[in-house]
């Protein structure tokens, strides 16, 4: 009995000591969602991307503020409007020891259309390639079907995998739309759970992936960018906010993403450090422009939202400062644009003032002195404090006479109903994955058109042909300075017309042990490779 009681704490003590030692070289991260696959070409999902970037790399990278920088390509140039020449980095090794060459790039891009059952395919990027040839092992020519100034940016999304590890033939020849030859038998997504198939050039190698439980990666000693910081990194999905914070406080994990804002003071008091950054995600209001908009009352069947004065009145009725301060606890910034300046294509436009008096005047001018009633749609589990924000907006609109009811539902239902145009006005968010203005303009406010693929998320069906033309021109302008200016003009056109109402930019927060540091990213990704030991 005495022996037992003595040895147990002793053994526990040894365990703790050995754990602490192992700890110095090991990093564990609590993520708020789980990767659906280790196949970097399977599902375009932020969790998959942020996890995958530790193992796989692309020709280009984006730094913490989404500036495009060289990745596996050392440099590139636009030979003409549709031809790009990429100089590939030399001396790069894959995890299996083989050399990285142009063949791997061609194989990787060829594989994308061959991935089966993808819920969100990467073909939206590879579909634009007309031709791909290797001049030599480290020079690659890519011709695009249309002029695409964002090509280097988009390349960041296309992970390079090892042609050898996946069983490609010696000669891989590109042909558009999945018609490449020399591909061998292409392994499908489930095969990537094995470290023998999930072979990339990234700083960490896949060690094991237990679905629902954890993903472990280990240091790749021959990484071209220098020795990676951690010997081992464990990423655990902890989907609920409370338990994720508890895991950090209890020391189970060293860093967590998206701690709830209301818990931040407690986390800081407990001696952890918190970093935050403005994200590329804008929270906005979109208003139905069609004649027969549903959910509007007191206007004799007319749609008041078609009147720019009414839209302006709504914008002026909102006290963005109050929302950012009181509901978001200071972790948001009132927005005057669709992307936080100084990102590409922003003009530095002022935030609309809070002016309920002027708003009432505008409503009266538009012929609605007594206001009207409106349904405001919002998800209640998608954006930070989304439902509370919508409630606040509804109250503010009620003060100028627009009696607003909030219709809050879970994200899966909200998106389906929004896409079915069921809301006269809705609140949603947009993260510009390319980090430039063309992204929100093209998806949110360009005219909905299935043939050009624009306005996909324009569920208010706002349409401004002048802006469409300018945007199309910008999108075929390779010159950055000119394109920047055109995008600024296009954005100003929409905002002057109150075609969309920006509310605020979300701020992304990370909490970690005080001996760690992480440079917060605007794209909200948590990338293990960028977590460092604090100096």
């Amino acid at each position, binding site marked *: 009995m005495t022996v037992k009681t003595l040895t147990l704490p002793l053994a526990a003590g040894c*365990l703790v000591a050995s754990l602490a030692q192992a700890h110095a070289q090991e990093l564990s991260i609590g993520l708020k969602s789980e990767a659906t696959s280790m196949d970097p070409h399977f599902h375009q999902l932020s969790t998959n991307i942020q996890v995958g970037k530790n193992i796989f790399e692309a020709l280009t990278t984006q730094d913490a503020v989404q500036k495009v920088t060289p990745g596996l390509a050392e440099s590139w140039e636009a030979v003409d409007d549709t031809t790009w020449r990429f100089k590939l980095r030399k001396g790069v090794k894959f995890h299996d020891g083989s050399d990285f060459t142009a063949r791997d790039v061609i194989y990787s891009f060829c594989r994308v259309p061959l991935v089966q059952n993808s819920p969100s*395919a990467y073909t*939206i990027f590879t579909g634009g390639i007309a031709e791909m040839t290797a001049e030599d092992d480290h020079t690659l020519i890519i011709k695009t079907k249309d002029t695409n100034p964002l090509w280097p940016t988009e390349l960041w999304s296309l992970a390079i995998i090892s042609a050898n590890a996946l069983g490609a033939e010696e000669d891989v020849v590109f042909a558009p739309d999945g018609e490449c030859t020399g591909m061998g038998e292409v392994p499908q997504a489930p095969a990537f759970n094995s470290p023998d198939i999930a072979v990339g050039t990234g700083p960490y190698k896949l060690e094991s992936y237990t*679905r629902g*439980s954890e993903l472990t990666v280990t240091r790749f000693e021959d990484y071209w960018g220098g020795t990676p910081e951690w010997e081992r990194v464990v990423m655990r999905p902890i989907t609920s906010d409370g*338990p994720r914070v508890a895991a950090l406080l*209890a020391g*189970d994990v060293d860093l967590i993403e998206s701690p709830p804002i209301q818990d931040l003071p407690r986390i800081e008091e407990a001696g952890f450090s918190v970093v935050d950054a403005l994200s590329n995600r804008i929270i906005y209001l979109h208003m139905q422009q069609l004649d027969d908009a549903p959910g509007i009352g007191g206007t004799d069947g007319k749609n008041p939202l078609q009147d720019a004065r009414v839209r302006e009145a709504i914008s002026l009725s909102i006290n963005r400062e109050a929302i950012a301060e009181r509901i978001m606890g200071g972790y948001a910034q009132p927005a005057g644009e669709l992307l936080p300046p100084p990102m590409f294509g922003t003009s530095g436009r002022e935030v609309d003032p809070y002016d309920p008096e002027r708003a009432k005047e505008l409503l009266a001018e538009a012929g609605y002195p007594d206001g009207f009633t409106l349904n405001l749609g919002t998800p209640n589990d998608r954006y930070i404090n989304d439902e509370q924000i919508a409630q606040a907006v509804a109250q503010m609109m009620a003060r100028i006479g627009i009696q607003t009811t909030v219709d809050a539902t879970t994200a899966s239902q909200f998106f389906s109903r929004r896409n079915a145009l069921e809301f006269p006005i809705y609140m949603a968010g947009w993260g510009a994955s390319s980090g430039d203005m063309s992204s929100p303009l093209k*998806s949110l406010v360009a005219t909905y058109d299935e043939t050009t693929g624009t306005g996909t998320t324009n569920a208010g069906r706002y349409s401004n042909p002048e802006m469409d033309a300018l945007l199309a021109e910008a999108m075929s302008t390779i010159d950055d300075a000119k394109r920047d200016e055109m995008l600024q003009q296009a954005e100003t056109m929409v905002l002057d017309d109150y075609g969309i109402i920006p509310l605020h930019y979300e701020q992304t927060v990370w909490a970690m042990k005080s001996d760690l540091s992480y440079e917060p990213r605007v794209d909200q990704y948590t990338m293990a490779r960028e977590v460092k030991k604090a100096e």
Partner: protein
Amino acid sequence: MLVYLVRRLGQSLLAIVAMAVLVFAGVYAIGNPVDVLINPEATQAEIAATMQRLGLDRPLYEQFGIFVMNALQGDLGTSFVYGRPALAIIMERLPATMELALVALFLSVAIGIPLGVWAGLRPDSIAGRTIMGGSILGFSLPNFWQGMLLILVFAVLLGWLPAGGRGETTEFLGLQVSFLTWDGLTHLILPAINLALFKMSLIIRLARANTREVSLQDYVKFARAKGLSGRRVVMVHILKNIMIPVVTIIGLELGSMVAFAIVTETVFAWPGMGKLLIDSINLLDRPVIVAYLMLTVLIIVSINLLVDVIYSLLDPRIRLSEMKG
């Protein structure tokens, strides 16, 4: 016996089919999974292509028809999210949930029955009252809150146990289990207690009420009068006779623990089936939801069947053929 089994199987099949129809239509009514799954920057053409790839462009009755045809051949569909067979994804998670549920069941029985019997034998003692008072707490405090409190006390404040996750696993009879390693065991304790608390309270109350009833029966009085030791009276005459209602409850509760350990699994980030169900509902991953609930019905039906068999072992007077399923 055979008639009884056939009738039970028929009923379970009916329940499974009804479940499949309801869930299929229900999930379809919530929304379109592609709206949630696809990158919002995808064009309309990409969305249409994805819908087609997942078979979501067909009318509901056609989708259901395809599902039934495949199900009859043992294929419950391919997950929209993972791109792998739904059943395989669920089976991957089953051992973790089973382990958690069985350990929780063991805890609730091993602690619940002795405490309940004790409280039943001495209902007016301080110990008896304390046990009953405690069981009310176990009943009435929400599971989620209990879990958070356990984490707060044992993981955050005291730092004795980890706050969540499954820890190290080893292979046992071909399955990955965590109770055989120290690390795994420490991860298992808190979620198992969390899951067990409610059931334990239930068993305590049930055991107490039955003990009180049985203690007054003539055969117990007779046994005492005969001069049997108190120990024998309790172990043989009382315990055996309170077991039938207890076994019923244990059976029912084990089914619900396996199928709906969702709250505990979410709070403790336990990689079991319950967490998979929640994730799948959020992403409208219909094949997984449908397969999961069908499997759940199957598990509960089988456990009930097992309970009936145990009845007949506990009480020789009960014949399976006479029971109405």
